């Protein structure tokens, strides 16, 4: 473990990734102490200071009702990160269980589970989440549900493929020979061997969940105002291009920075842990 961390930190790109993630997570956690305008996360109106370009003290400018853009971005980070973590905490156990069962329990279970997985994967990711949001009210909780529903099949496919390979390994046969239960073999014998791949994918995915969630709210199908959200900030600001460019550029770059950070780290993990697909 220590060795793994040391190798990851020997690569300059992954160090940049760790720094970016640190900035994003740190600013999200410490948002209350960083910004001089913590109330701007909500419905605050300041018409003496609206639509201002970047300057001081509003380093990223202000929005159309005079709220500090930087403040709204770091509070949006907080919500994005919570959403990403919750989605993965729901989707990964579900997908992993389905994948293990499909890979280890007989052909009938496999047929039903993998065909179901395939159905979910046959609807373009964003479109599936959009159609779920279409029938639900656009709230944070429903947004998490919609993204979870579109996310679990990726894990069930990943773990299914890993299980197929692992079940032929000697240690699985050995466990079968001594009469271990199927539950024991799936979750105690096989699952730990899938951890490196699952962990790598989760790191990469935390970025991509943020990306997809921001896409949903960009389309007006996610978190609703006044809750700060990067996607809806871009959507709102896009109407005022090119004059009020900061309204779109900064929230857009904020998404890029967060996702890029997780991707850099995930890439380095993939290389070190040797988990190519």
């Amino acid at each position: 473990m220590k060795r793994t961390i040391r190798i990851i930190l020997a690569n300059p790109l992954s160090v940049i990734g760790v720094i970016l993630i640190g900035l994003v997570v740190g600013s999200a956690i410490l948002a209350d102490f960083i910004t001089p305008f913590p109330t701007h996360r909500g419905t605050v109106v300041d018409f003496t200071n609206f639509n201002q370009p970047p300057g001081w003290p509003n380093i990223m400018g202000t929005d159309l009702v005079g709220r500090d853009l930087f403040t709204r971005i770091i509070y949006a980070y907080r919500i994005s990160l919570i959403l990403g973590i919750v989605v993965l905490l729901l989707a990964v156990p579900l997908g992993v269980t389905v994948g293990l069962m499909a890979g280890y329990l007989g052909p009938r279970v496999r047929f039903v589970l993998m065909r179901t997985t395939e159905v979910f994967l046959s609807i373009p990711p964003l479109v599936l989440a959009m159609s779920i949001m279409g029938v639900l009210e656009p709230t944070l909780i429903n947004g998490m549900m919609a993204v979870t529903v579109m996310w679990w099949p990726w894990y069930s496919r990943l773990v299914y493929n890993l299980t197929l390979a692992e079940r032929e390994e000697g240690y699985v046969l050995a466990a079968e020979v001594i009469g271990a239960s199927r539950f024991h073999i799936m979750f105690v014998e096989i699952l730990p061997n899938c951890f490196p791949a699952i962990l790598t994918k989760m790191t990469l995915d935390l970025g991509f969940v943020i990306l997809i969630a921001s896409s949903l709210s960009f389309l007006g199908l996610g978190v609703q105002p006044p809750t700060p959200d990067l996607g809806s900030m871009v959507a709102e600001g896009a109407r005022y291009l090119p004059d009020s460019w900061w309204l779109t550029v900064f929230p857009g770059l904020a998404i890029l920075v967060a996702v890029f950070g997780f991707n850099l780290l995930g890439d380095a993990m993939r290389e070190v842990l040797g988990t190519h697909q």
Partner: protein
Amino acid sequence: MGNVLNLLIRRVWISLLVLVGVSILIFLIARVIPGDPARIALGPNATDEQVIKLRGELHLDDPIWKQYGYFASELLQGDLGTSLYTNRPVVKDIAQFLPATLELVFAAGILMVLIGLPLGIISAKYEGRFLDNLIRVIALLGVSAPSFVWAVILMLLFAFFLPLFPIAGRIHTDFDIDRTTGFLLIDTLLVGNLRAFVDALWHLFLPAFALALSGIGQAARLTRANMTETYRRPYIEMAHSYGFPGWRVARKYAFKPSLIPSLTIIGLDFAAMLGNAFLVEAIFAWPGLSRYGVAVILRKDLNAIVGTVLIISAAFLIANLIVDLLIALLNPKIRYARRNP
């Protein structure tokens, strides 16, 4: 070639099965809606009689499997119901908006292959060197932002700051082109108007590039990953031991075998683009399915939602079929495999 045909038939069969699955899934999603679909459709001012009448028309009082039966049999006749938003058959709405979206997605797909694959090849050829690291960072940046962010950035840079490209739309309003196919690049050529064709291409470029960027990144990353793995295979060393020139080894020995796994991912990226097109269309005011799709979703127009998702999924399945066919044609192991019972 018999093998390829067999494979194709099997894939078509599986795709149809999956499409049935998709229709069930979408149908279920549309039916778990909290509240009464009939009341939502009619709006708050409808009387109870009107609601009961519409519930009857929509078979909402039958058991759910029977409802699906009605839905499926109408679907088989090419009927997706009427949109409550436009009051027109959903099929007609989709037929009007889909070509613009497909044109955008196809263009982006072409850019993805033409730019992404060569970047991946160069990156793998120079593994570990400066050029490789540069391409890797660019590719990673490409996949790290949603396409609406790229759309905004490209628009600011190349339409406003440097006015090289038009800001929005598919074609200049001066051109009045018959919409025979709905694909402007084809329609302008059909009427022989070359200037209109160039103008349409000009309008297409920025949105298509914004849409393609994450695909380009993905294709480059994947091609690189597959090729560097292929580079460790014995036949590459064999090729080097015979002194074949480096680029020849890259092309004939490393790229072609690794193209096969890359193609699968290109199929998946194509799917992602069908979804992401919604994001790009919104920024560039591209008159495709996006505005329609978002509008019907916000209005809870169930028939239109189901229809849109089904059509997009069908387009995705067809794209995947084409990819599978290409793989079968490229991979001699599939072409010449002994037939197993």
